[in-house]
């Protein structure tokens, strides 16, 4: 059998930014960052996993369901990655979010940030999760013992400078 064309392998590579129902892990993100970078330039990779907690606001959580406007969420991730590159030149981001039903302990979001030095990688990673929570068009419905509720947080305006400045302050604290 002939070798499949090289582009096929490219298509199979883990994207830096993604949203979908598949289970998440940090290693594919770290690998994707390594594939897309020039070896040896970056001295730090910082990873973050967001997990489904079994308690929230005094409620016993049974499971969560995530819903998203997926094409817009990808654009939000692109925007966050661009913001990271602007604020911390040279820093690069990989960011995956999951949708659908997630059980306690499962990973809902995975983020990895790479940069020359650790300070920027830590800051970029923290900034990215703050921005996901501020602007990504993703919603979680919490099913707890006794009922369920849509969680409603930030107002999803990507141009809100106050929100962005808050994320930068938190990232650099």
């Amino acid at each position, binding site marked *: 059998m002939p070798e499949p064309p090289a582009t096929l392998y490219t298509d199979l590579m883990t994207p830096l930014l993604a949203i979908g129902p598949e289970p998440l892990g940090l290693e594919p993100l770290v690998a994707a960052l390594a594939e897309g970078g020039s070896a040896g330039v970056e001295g730090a990779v910082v990873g973050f996993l*967001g997990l489904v907690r079994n308690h929230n606001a005094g409620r016993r959580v049974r499971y969560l369901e*995530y*819903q*998203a*406007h997926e*094409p*817009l*969420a990808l*654009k939000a991730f692109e925007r966050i990655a661009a913001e990271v590159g602007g604020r911390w030149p040279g820093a690069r981001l990989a960011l995956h*979010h999951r949708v659908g039903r997630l059980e306690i302990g499962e990973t*809902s*979001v995975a983020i990895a940030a790479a940069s020359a030095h650790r300070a920027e990688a830590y800051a970029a990673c923290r900034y990215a*999760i703050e921005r*996901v*929570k*501020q*602007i*990504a*068009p*993703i*919603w*979680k*419905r919490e099913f707890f013992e006794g009922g369920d509720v*849509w*969680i*409603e*947080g*930030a*107002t*999803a*305006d*990507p*141009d809100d400078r106050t929100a962005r400045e808050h994320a930068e302050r938190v990232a650099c604290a």
Partner: protein
Amino acid sequence: MRVTVRLFARLRDIVGAEEVEREVAPGATAGAVWRQLAAEFPALGDYERSISVAVNADYARMDAAVGEGDEVAFLPPVSGG
């Protein structure tokens, strides 16, 4: 003209559908589409101040004009992560 309205999270529960088609006046803004829907489903009124909008999967403003066949998505406050 007709537009497709996409709804998420609690808005979807209030309207009872992921998306609905609506006839709106030519030159209508996203805000006008919202007000028309909120007149039909008064519970949407809770979101008057907190709603965001995307037109054809791009962030937009409530005063943006929409066109025939556009997809107008209304986004309640988000809770990803």
